[in-house]
């Protein structure tokens, strides 16, 4: 998605409504930091956020800043928009990114032509502000020499 196309979908894009469980994630994103839960007992990182560690069931979870580096685990080029808000953005890329710390997350790949996106491509997080409250983490390819 180009910056121009992205700008067009700012107005109507369905934005997350942070809640008690996810507030710290969106607050960190607002400050351009990517945080995910890490277990204080076993050290396991996970995402999306849960109340108990999926590895050891401990409730002692702490939002922890991660590197923001990862690779494209899978992707799709969307040709048919899910709603009017995205109609001007097609074709755009929805991807599952595997973070260096292990967990996967869904995102958009920006800063690259959709046809140039490949599985395994190294990417890093960038932040796109959509409102006073919501900044969405997205990913762009890492420049390789």
């Amino acid at each position, binding site marked *: 998605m180009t910056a121009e196309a992205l700008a067009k979908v700012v107005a109507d894009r369905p934005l997350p409504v942070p809640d008690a469980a996810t507030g710290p994630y969106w607050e960190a994103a607002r400050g351009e930091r990517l945080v995910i839960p890490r277990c204080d007992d076993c050290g396991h990182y996970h995402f999306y956020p849960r109340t108990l560690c999926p590895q050891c069931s401990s409730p002692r979870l702490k939002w922890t800043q991660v590197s923001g580096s990862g690779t494209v685990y*899978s992707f799709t080029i969307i040709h048919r928009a899910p*709603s009017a808000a995205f109609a001007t953005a097609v074709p755009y890329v*929805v991807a599952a990114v595997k973070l260096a710390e292990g967990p996967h997350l869904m995102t958009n790949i920006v800063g690259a032509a959709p046809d140039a996106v490949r599985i395994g491509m190294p990417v890093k997080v960038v932040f796109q502000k959509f409102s006073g409250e919501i900044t969405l983490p997205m990913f762009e390819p890492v420049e390789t020499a």
Partner: protein
Amino acid sequence: MANLRAAIAGIGESRVGRVPDRSALQLQTDAAQAALADAGLKISDIDGLLTTPVRVEHWNMPCGIVAHHLGVRAKYLSTVDIAGASGCGMIHQAAMAIGSGQCETVLCVAGQNLLTHSTRASAVKSMAEGGSAHPQFEVPYGPLVPSLYALVAQRHMHEYGTTPEQMAEVAVTLRRHASMNPNAHKRELITINDVLNSKKIASPLHILDCAIVSDGAAAAIVTSAERARDLKKKPVHLLGQGYGCRHSHIGDTELTTTGAVDAGAAAFKSAGLKPADMDFAQIYDCFTITVIVELEDLGFCKKGEGGHFVEGGRIGIGGELPVTTHGGLLSAGHPGLGGGFFHVLEAVRQLRGEAGERQVKDAEVALVHGNGGVISIHCTLILGGAAA
């Protein structure tokens, strides 16, 4: 796991396709009456009722609404919601209610006028925001339901060399099956090139890789094996069942192996059978890639070989393992949560020898598999014409 000694004694479906003259409750009534007639039973013989939620209307308690509408005096009733696996789940949960002595004869019914109710745009929007994508961590990025399965397809292609042509062959085969099903929604034959040249939705999936949207309802009557023996039609027995769920959202998980591994293994174990014993398989087919992944996870072929498995007519009627012989969600019809229930009905028709032009020769044992969410939640049944 104890054999529940339950059997399917009657099946029925409404008209399927575009049925603008029938509401959701009318379609369910049509299906229920057809199932009662098939079994030779009356409403007053029914003492249990299971149904699923619908999307077209707000029903605060679907099982209560449906039971009252049909005039069922239920000793047991419940709304089953395991998404696309609900059709298979209703059969097993009816069997449990009968096995526990709570009731004797359960009507399972599901369906709605999803096509008529939905303008195209609103259907697309509700599919995008209707719960399969995580509201905070996925929906803001603009995924459509097909794009979630597209992530699975792309990864499967990357890991195992699966091709768009192989996925297309699933759509072509199921359409051929639907062409022999008089009640199927889409019956015109298609070719691999038709699929590959159809509109791109979310790469690598084309519109003909995706399930259709239909009006329609399906019903089945489950009772004890003893009672079923005395009814009008040859009973079809529940021989085994299993469930599995390995993730809730597709964005945070491995993409090419699913909870169908657990559901299938449990079902085969409880039936004391193995994949090679199945005469055909009614595999859930919301997208072409779903069939390929499930054939692997259920043990019909090794992981990664699903693309090859569906080639060369192997999953067609007359092939090594006929798959989804009524035409499935890709062609026969998909009215939402009840869509996978038609797979059960077709298994019953085949096992009775009533499938007409599309009859699988000597069909005695079948697997039926339902999948919900984005290959998230699974229920597998093993059905047979003879009691275990």
